[in-house]
């Protein structure tokens, strides 16, 4: 039995990947989570210039539904500064996926070119952040834009390109097809869902940016559905990476059965002992594989179809 996980041309030691934006702002937390046992880590989404993001409150938990809402809003140091962190990660052999975002094709291209000299595992294109006034959300819902960006970037690097999809669309298949036609190497779904919370005492939205994105257990049935629908459409023609509300090893299996080749975990790792959580996930996955006589992760992928 092996946990080694294939995502297109890439192999990682197990199917767990740290999702973008969670413990991903500095090399040290990324390194720590990798040491904690995940197969790979995705950085916070990195843009052209440094950004403060949105005012606080910008992240809080909704524990009644085992979830979180955030409006961090792409706060990041800019790719030039972030090179320093990437350099350390690469030097320390941490399988790193750099998430990047831009307002348009040219921005994406500039960032990619500014980072592509590092042997990172992949670039993940965040076309889907719902927390910026412009940019992200528009691009990720426009299939023509998605196609153009992916095609352009694909021509500029040999490093695999992953496209992260937003669930805030009428037809994810259309967007996914654009990304696949553009030449992307994997699809990641899902990002957070547009959401907000209002405090009834003060009659105000709680988030500093008012609106945010919902992550955590609440969105798991939605994420599983996205992966299932995408697998129905593409089968094994493009690797799918599931994300959204994975809070246990059983949830990982559910995503794999739906069609994912690997998964990303965010909110569940925002706890005091993320290392324990990762170990616990892995032990559950192993137990499941043993009991169900699976020899490899890829055998589980798509099993519910």
């Amino acid at each position, binding site marked *: 039995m092996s946990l080694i996980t294939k995502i297109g041309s890439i192999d990682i030691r197990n199917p767990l990947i740290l999702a973008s*934006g*969670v*413990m*991903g*702002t*500095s*090399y*040290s*937390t*990324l*390194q*720590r*989570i990798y040491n904690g046992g995940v197969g790979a880590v995705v950085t*916070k989404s990195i843009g052209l210039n*440094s*950004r*403060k*993001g949105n*005012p*606080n*409150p*910008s*992240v*809080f*938990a*909704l*524990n*009644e539904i*085992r*979830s*979180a809402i*955030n409006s*961090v809003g792409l*706060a*990041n*140091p*800019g790719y030039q*500064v*972030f090179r320093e962190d990437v350099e350390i990660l690469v030097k320390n052999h941490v399988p790193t996926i750099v998430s990047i975002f831009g307002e348009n094709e040219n921005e994406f291209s500039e960032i990619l070119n500014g980072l592509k000299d590092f042997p990172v595992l992949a670039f993940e294109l965040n076309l889907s952040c719902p927390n910026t006034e412009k940019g992200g959300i528009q691009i990720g819902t426009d299939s023509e834009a998605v196609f153009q960006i992916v095609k352009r970037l694909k021509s500029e690097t040999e490093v695999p390109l992953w496209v992260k999809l937003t669930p805030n669309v009428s037809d994810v298949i259309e967007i996914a097809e654009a990304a696949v036609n553009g030449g992307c190497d994997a699809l990641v779904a899902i990002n957070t869902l547009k959401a907000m*919370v209002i*405090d009834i*005492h*003060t009659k*105000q939205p*709680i988030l*500093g940016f008012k609106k945010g994105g919902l992550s*955590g257990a609440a969105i798991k049935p939605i994420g599983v559905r996205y992966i299932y629908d995408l697998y129905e459409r593409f089968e094994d023609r493009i690797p799918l990476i599931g994300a959204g509300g994975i*809070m*246990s090893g059983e949830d990982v299996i559910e995503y794999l059965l739906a069609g994912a080749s690997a998964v990303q975990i*965010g*909110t*569940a*790792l*925002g*706890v*005091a*002992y*993320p290392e324990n*959580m990762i170990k*616990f996930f892995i032990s559950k996955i192993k137990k499941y594989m043993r009991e169900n006589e699976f020899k490899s992760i890829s055998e589980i992928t798509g099993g519910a179809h």
Partner: protein
Amino acid sequence: MKKQTLANSKPLMGKIIDKQEECDDTYNFLIDLPVKNKTAKPGQFVMLWVPGVDEFPVGVAGYENDVLELGIAKMGPGTTAMLAKNIGDFVGIRGFYGKSFQTPKNINHLLIGGGFGMTPLKFLTKNLIERDDNLSIQIFEGARTKSKLMYLDWLQNLHEKDQIIFNVCTDDGSFGYKGFPTVALEKFLEESETPSVLYVAGPERMMKVIFDIGKKYENVIDMQMSLADRYMRCGFGICSYCAVDPTGWRICVDGPVFNTKQLEQISDFGVYRRLDTGEKQRI
């Protein structure tokens, strides 16, 4: 295991039931929380939401009967807005977050602080004086000038009742001796033959100085410092803006209180912190 995740919630709206000027530009608040049975420990903090303005971390200065005590020092827009709040107003509280001070028995407890760093130390003092296994409890407080000394009356009163030894100083000599808390601290450590633990909360540069002093004394068996000079968003370990290099420890859950062994591994300590963008900034 599942229950371990996301133990916290959205801001709970607490009502301000008391507000007292503590010293210059610093107020003490009592906030009634709509919860039962949540316990706080000295060194822990909360995220304080001033509705419509900002949310930021503040240390717990006390917690009893669901009433939370905070001490807020004016800094910028967020703290200014909080200082403008009055009895009856609602503010949001998330917490209690972070690790607390660990207090061994039969030692000297040396609490060294300045500015709003005094808030967790007040809570710690309150807890320590209720115990009978201390060699001594000593407070070393320093400030620029007398009107900036937090909890002055309260600490003097405890000193007079012999519950603590209060060593106080100011930069300008307007109260206590003229100079830094380190003077009295070093004097004590040189003369003492019994084991001491240092609990320090204040500007990180000051803490770094004390850390280097403490390391020189064998009778200092541990130093616990509260790293409060870090930008925080979530408070529960998800965002990583508060993290330190190279360990990746997040101040909000792995700290804010770190011990000697941990502090030695934190290369940032007293050197740099991350801004809200994730960029580094020299301290």
